[in-house]
């Protein structure tokens, strides 16, 4: 798991992960690259990450992938990420395509739902919590 301050160097990450698994005999490599869209007059999105729980979440996914003979990787940005640059890259490597296609879908969707990362719109230099696009994590409301 890799965390960066500001936008990701997507080509470097893609190429390094490719090289890391070049001799691992995986037949399918599927990255997912998330890029900040220009919409709603934002200058950037900004992210807070709570790393200890993100690391546990990611470790559990590594175990799930391993049980399928696969590998997962991820990189995410902290702080401000300008429009048209990338905040998120994740990837699956697996021997066969079916496992890879299903795993990247499940991995990305669970990431959106349960990775402890908070998103803010940046407008006129101000951070505004993206509440309408955020999802309560599994188990929310316990203390209410």
């Amino acid at each position, binding site marked *: 798991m890799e965390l960066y301050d500001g936008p990701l160097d997507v080509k470097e990450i893609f190429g390094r992960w490719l090289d890391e698994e070049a001799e691992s005999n995986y037949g399918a490599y599927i990255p997912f690259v998330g890029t900040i869209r220009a919409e709603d007059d934002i200058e950037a999105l900004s992210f807070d990450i709570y790393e200890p729980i993100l690391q546990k979440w990611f470790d559990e996914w590594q175990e799930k992938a391993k049980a399928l003979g696969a590998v997962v990787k991820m990189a995410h940005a902290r702080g401000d990420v300008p429009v048209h640059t990338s905040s*998120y890259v994740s990837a699956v490597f697996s021997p066969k395509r079916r496992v890879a296609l299903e795993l990247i879908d499940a991995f990305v969707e669970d990431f959106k739902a*349960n990775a*402890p990362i908070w998103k803010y719109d940046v407008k006129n230099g101000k951070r505004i919590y993206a509440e309408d696009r955020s999802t*309560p994590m599994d*188990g929310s409301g*316990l*203390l209410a």
Partner: protein
Amino acid sequence: MIKVEFLGPIGKAPMEMEASTLADVATRLKEESELSAWLDKCAVALNDTMVNDLTTKLKDGDRVSILPPVCGG
């Protein structure tokens, strides 16, 4: 004493309190008016492990984290 910390956008300083279960923490946090809009949509971690049971026992030095709705990616 246990410590409660508020992650991401909640923007509230950590609190210390006496509590023997998570139910005690719930009771105490419901007294904080600034949390009223948050508690029903927040998840909870104990010492960085997600928890989902109000009867979870706490011990001196434990750290409880309150996690508001997320949106990574």
